[in-house]
C-alpha cells in the first residue's frame, strides 16, 4: 500500500472517530469524492498548516448548514448563525485532524510542526500555490455532505 493511500485511510478513520466520538454525530464516507472542489459557496473551512519534514495543509470544508449542525452537536447547545463558536468548533475539528495527520506522518519518521487552526467563511476557492499531492475525502452527515482535504508538498 502506498503511503498516500495509507494516509487517506487513516484520515478517514480519524474523521469518523472525531465525529462519532466527540462531535456526537454519525457520519459516513460518501462515494467518490470530486477531483477538485472549485468555488465553495456559503461554506466554512477550518485548516491547519504543516511545517517541517512535510509541508502542507489539512482542511475541513463544510456548507454553512452542516457547520451549524456540527457546532450544535459538538457544543451541546443550539447555534443558529455563523459566529465565533462555529469558527472555534470548526477550527478545533481541523486542529484534531491536524494532530492525527502529524501522528500519522511522525510514525513514518517525519518531524512535523502544526500551525494554530484558522477558518475562512463565505464564498471562496481553496487552492495551493505549490506542487502538492492532494487528497479530497467526502463524508455524509445528517445535514449534508462535507469534505476533508489534505495537501502535501512534493
Amino acid at each position, binding site marked *: 500500500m502506498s503511503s498516500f493511500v495509507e494516509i487517506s485511510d487513516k484520515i478517514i478513520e*480519524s474523521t469518523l*472517530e*472525531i465525529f462519532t*466520538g*466527540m462531535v*456526537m454525530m454519525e457520519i459516513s464516507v460518501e462515494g467518490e469524492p470530486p477531483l477538485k472542489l472549485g468555488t465553495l459557496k456559503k461554506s466554512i473551512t477550518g485548516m491547519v498548516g504543516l511545517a517541517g519534514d512535510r509541508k502542507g495543509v489539512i482542511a475541513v470544508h463544510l456548507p454553512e448548514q452542516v457547520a451549524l449542525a456540527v457546532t450544535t452537536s*459538538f*457544543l*451541546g*447547545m443550539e447555534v443558529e448563525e455563523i459566529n*465565533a*463558536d462555529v469558527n*472555534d*468548533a470548526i*477550527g*478545533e475539528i481541523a*486542529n*484534531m485532524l*491536524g*494532530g*492525527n495527520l*502529524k*501522528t500519522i506522518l*511522525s510514525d513514518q519518521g517525519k518531524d512535523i510542526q*502544526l500551525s*494554530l487552526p484558522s477558518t475562512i467563511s463565505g464564498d471562496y476557492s481553496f487552492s495551493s500555490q505549490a506542487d502538492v499531492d492532494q487528497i479530497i475525502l467526502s463524508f455524509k452527515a445528517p445535514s449534508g455532505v462535507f469534505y476533508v482535504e489534505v495537501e502535501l508538498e512534493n
Partner: protein
Amino acid sequence: MAKNVLLVDDSSTMRKIISRSLRQAGLDFGEIYEAADGHEALVLLENETIDIVLSDINMPNMNGIEFLREKKNRPGIQAIPVFMISTETGEDIISEAKSLGTIGALKKPFTPEKVNEVLGPFM
C-alpha cells in the same frame, strides 16, 4: 464530595466542549472554573478551591508546559493534580509534562467513555 474542576484552554468553545464531555461522562463534579491560559489558571488556583485541573498544552501567553513549570514552584498549589488535554501526543512533550508533575494526558478526540475511564478514578 464532588470535585471542583479548572478547565484551561484558550478556546472558550473548547472549554464548552470539555464541560459537555464531563457531563456526558457522568462524573460527579462540583464547580467548573475556566481559564484562557496558564496565567489565568495560576490566579484561579491561588484564589479558589480547585481539586483537579484539565489543561491544554498549546496556548498563548503561558502555555501548558510553562504553566506546569510555574505551578511546580508554588508550594500552595503544587499538589493539585493536572491532566493535559491536547492533540499534541509527541513523546517529548508528554514526558516533559510528566516530569513537571502532570498525572495523565487525554488525547483529543476523546469520547465521554474515555473521559470517564481516565478521570473517573480522580473524581
